[in-house]
């Protein structure tokens, strides 16, 4: 054995260690180290609508942020509450239909019907998902996968809510920049809000539910209640996404329950990096424009998509954000063993 084996050693950067506590406030450099990544994302998104002049790509950005709401919700529910939901489309569909009905039947202004629909439909979704909450792992995943399918088929079979034609004549959001900024700001708020939340006490309970629900139960805490809370929070994002999509497209139809809304957020989470909440957001900002670039390939883009997803799952399962975060906080070197 004269062949020397090497191993990669990872060490935290000095500046990262100095930034851990209150001492980060000691110098501008440390503060910048902490704030810059966040500021780049926030300021970048705020400036982007003016920087992108074509209306088409502005729309793409809006849709990307709407998807980001779903993806962040998926990541939160899957990796902080332990419920892997394959039914993101259900949230979108319920939110969208409720908002469309509020707008067309009651004549509410879009800026009023979107938040109202978000809350109403989140409650509806949570109540409908309540029977599934005790389920674990694959069983919950499959059950949630069926919800949007079932909802779509029921609307089709009973011919309610406009049937296959959908609800037309939904009022659009007034103003050119309003829908874009609604999407961007709500996406950012949702993501940073959840990031804050999971570090509070309640986040601790939620993570405990994920890791060992029996011990949570033994501590006298109602597991189902916390799971319901998690689903409600996730549904808030998803239903808001659906409600705003309906007003952006000025139409609500069965395609709101399409599988895309369940699959793309998961793909974004895999690509962006699970367990981070920011990762899925970035994943959406990458994947949605990428799929627009690939649009000219027709359905072949779904093939590309699947291959990207597979490559990430098999080869780089940590995702982009975890990778970038590691590079940012740590340096690596080879040491001989």
């Amino acid at each position, binding site marked *: 054995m004269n062949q020397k084996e090497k191993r990669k050693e990872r060490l935290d950067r000095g500046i990262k260690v100095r930034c851990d506590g209150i001492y980060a406030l000691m110098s501008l450099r440390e503060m910048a180290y902490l704030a810059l990544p966040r500021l780049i994302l926030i300021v970048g998104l705020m400036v982007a609508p003016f920087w992108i002049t074509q209306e088409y790509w502005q729309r793409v950005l809006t849709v990307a942020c709407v998807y980001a709401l779903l993806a962040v919700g998926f990541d939160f529910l899957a990796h902080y509450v332990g419920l892997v939901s394959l039914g993101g489309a259900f949230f979108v569909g319920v939110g969208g239909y409720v908002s469309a009905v509020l707008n067309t039947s009651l004549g509410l202004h879009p800026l009023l019907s979107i938040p109202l629909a978000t809350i109403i439909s989140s409650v509806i979704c949570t109540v409908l998902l309540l*029977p599934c909450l005790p389920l674990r792992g694959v069983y919950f995943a499959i059950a949630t996968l*069926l919800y949007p399918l079932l909802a779509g088929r029921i609307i089709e079979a009973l011919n309610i809510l406009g049937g296959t034609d959908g609800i037309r004549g939904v009022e659009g959001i007034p103003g050119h920049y309003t829908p874009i900024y609604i999407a961007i700001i709500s996406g950012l708020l949702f993501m940073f809000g959840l990031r804050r939340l999971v570090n509070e006490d309640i986040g601790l309970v939620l993570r405990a539910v994920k890791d060992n629900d029996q011990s949570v139960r033994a501590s006298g805490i109602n597991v189902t209640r916390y799971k319901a809370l998690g689903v409600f929070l996730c549904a808030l994002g998803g239903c808001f996404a659906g409600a705003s999509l309906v007003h952006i497209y000025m139409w609500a139809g069965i395609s709101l329950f399409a599988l895309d809304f369940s699959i793309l957020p998961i793909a974004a989470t895999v690509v962006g990096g699970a367990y981070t909440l920011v990762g899925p957001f970035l994943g959406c900002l990458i994947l949605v424009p990428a799929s627009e670039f690939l649009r000219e390939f027709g359905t072949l883009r779904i093939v590309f998509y699947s291959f990207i997803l597979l490559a990430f799952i098999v080869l780089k399962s940590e995702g982009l954000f975890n990778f970038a975060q590691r590079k940012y906080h740590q340096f690596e070197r080879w040491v001989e063993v």
Partner: protein
Amino acid sequence: MDVVVYGVINSVSLALVALGFALVYGISRLPNFAHGALYVTTGFITWSFLKSLGLNYVISGVLALIITGLVGAGIYRAILIRIRGMAISEIIASYAIGLAILEGFRYWGFKGMTYTLPTFTKKTFILLDVPVDGHRVLVVVLGAFVMFLLWAFTHYTKVGLALRGMAQDERAAMMLGIDSDLMALLAMGLGSALAGISALFLLPLGNIVVEKGYDVLIQALAVCIVGGLGSWAGAILAAFIIGFAQVVSTAYLGAKFQMVVSLIAILTVLILKPSGLFGRQKELEERV
């Protein structure tokens, strides 16, 4: 009488469709979401051999089955083996593979109503006063025969017994010298070939379209969940329950309700008894 005859035919078709999925899941605990894609793959390969190369129907069918089996085994060897045991990754990865195959077919021009396979026979039988075309009768007979073969294979051959050993307790099977990776590979190949067999039997009844891949996946899932994931006897019983439920709902409520009924069946079973009608109750693993 219509309901009885067509209920039996529908049930056997469902059982055939679900058999491959149940086999793979039962043996290697791998939810193969590419099942529907493999089903459609067999159809298109058979069509290509039959129409483009002009081969005999039987030869092209057998070749297509072998290719599909190899494709399934290849998928397992190349991709799924690396993520085995991570349930969600397995679902996402196998679904992505299925999506890639199906949408790939769509891109390469396999779409529309032009792709059909000929039926096995043109005769019509009268069963219980109901006229049934010969192909459907053959499907039931051959389907029962395939199930019998599978049963004999898993009960009386060494490989079959090893597969069942894996299904019952993987660790104990490994201790007795059964190569679990090899068996899982075999199971995946066999399951894909079974998906192919069901495709060969059922596709002549309609067009070969990409959308069938998604429907087949949902049907297989429905049957396997209602019957209990991993239980073959349960899957066959569930196929009969769902099959009859679908035929009855089509007869009395309308065709649109067919899918609604099977979806509601799955959801109810999932919520009330996640391990299905015949699954072993593992309370702690599936619910809090």
